[in-house]
């Protein structure tokens, strides 16, 4: 039951992107920080990379869900709470306790994670472009829930993370993925696909 159509959805993104500029390049900078943290040692790299994810989830909670999405979707405050909860979990586990590690492991799950991260940074926006959308009505990395979720699943897989950190991103894959069918937004098919490969990768790593 989605109370808006695709025209309203992408019009919302146009207004959102215009209003938050230059948050988009800043989000890409945070994403690159996480990628660099996987392959290079630097002071507090795990905590800084975790903080980058915290900023993205908190921004999605407040700026996207609470401020913009809530104007067309009565469930958006619930989504804002979920994204804020994920930001708090990442902050508590990764920044506060230092239990989130991003060092590259090079195992199959790590490769899957890296692929998801690169897809979120490049593939998802490119797919949206291919589907016919142009700036400013593009769900972008780091400031839109879909690519942010896929990137986070990839980062958690590529490094070491405890299972509670996967729960909300996996749930969002189900919620956000429904748009693929209900709004005919094909790039959001990547959300359930990302959830599936993440679960497979977790299972493979445990064996």
């Amino acid at each position: 039951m989605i109370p808006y159509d695709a025209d309203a959805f992408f019009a919302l993104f146009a207004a959102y992107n215009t209003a938050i500029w230059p948050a988009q390049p800043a989000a890409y900078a945070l994403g690159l920080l996480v990628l660099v943290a996987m392959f290079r040692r630097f002071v507090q790299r795990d905590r800084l990379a975790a903080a980058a994810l915290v900023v993205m989830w908190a921004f999605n909670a407040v700026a996207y869900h609470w401020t913009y999405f809530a104007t067309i979707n009565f469930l958006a405050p619930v989504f804002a709470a979920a994204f804020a909860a994920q930001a708090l979990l990442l902050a508590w586990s990764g920044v506060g306790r230092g239990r989130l590690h991003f060092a590259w492991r090079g195992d199959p799950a790590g490769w899957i994670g890296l692929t998801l991260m690169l897809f979120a940074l490049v593939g998802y926006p490119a797919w949206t472009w291919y589907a016919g959308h142009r700036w400013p009505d593009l769900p972008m990395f780091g400031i839109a829930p879909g690519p942010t979720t896929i990137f986070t699943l990839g980062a958690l897989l590529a490094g070491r993370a405890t299972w509670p950190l996967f729960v909300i991103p996996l749930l969002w894959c189900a919620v956000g993925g429904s748009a693929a069918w209900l709004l005919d937004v094909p790039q959001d098919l990547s959300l359930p696909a990302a959830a599936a490969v993440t679960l497979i990768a977790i299972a493979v790593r445990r064996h």
Partner: protein
Amino acid sequence: MSCEKILPTRRAVLAGLGALAVPLPAGAAIGPHLRPIPATGERVPAIGMGTWITFNVGDDAGLRAARTEVLQAFFDLGGQVVDSSPMYGSAQAVIGHALARVSAPERLFSATKVWTPLAMLGDGQMADARDLWGIPRFDLMQVHNLLNWDGHLPTILAEKAAGRVRYVGVTTSHGRRHDELEQVMARQPLDAVQLTYNVVDRQAEARLLPLAAERGLMVVINRPFKRGALFDSYARHPLPSWAAEIGCANWAQVFLKFIISHPAVTVAIPATSRVDHMAENMGALHGPLPDQALRVRMARDIAAL
């Protein structure tokens, strides 16, 4: 927005309808079909307008302008009843935006809902709705999907006593909670009820529509096209031969005439974001309506397609 480039404008559609100069079917001069609201005898056109999804377009100027054209076409073609809800995101704000820009907004028969689990928030929600629509009172205030109906009805009845609401109602959709709706209809001081009824969802015929007639309730019909599913299922088929007998030029008019020909129904509220579809819908206000024998045949033939 792109839709403005693709979809025809109200002016183009209305001019096109005239330019076609198609001979009207026999009986097309009949109408517009008006229905009395039992509580007062006030008559309203039997085709209204819903706003679920279609008017929830946020702040986008292009989409708001397109919806203003839709509302203007609705009024131009004889419509009055516009229904919305706080649940529909920005729809009420978009209605208010459009009402401030259309001609003849005084035609409006305003219908909205209270939608909150907390009775103490009902007053504020109704005040917000008046601000959003830009009107001093609502013609019809309903409890949305029976959500805390026993908490909200006293508040809405107080609003009616204060002159800020004219009629009081409750709603359901998807054909759900009919047993509870029946109890509320039978026992509460309502003026109106809103429920789902269409040519394939006919459960309401058994008890709810007869009860509404017995209790003297205005009946508002939502989901007349089953959220578009009726077009998905049947629009590929040619119109049945009886469609011409009741002046129907398209499937929308077939579906709507089936609904408004039920003697207990006051108004059906199809939603659309397109002026050309609005013109099709409003065509159902005119021409002959099916009698009971033909209604039975319509339901049977459509089910067989």
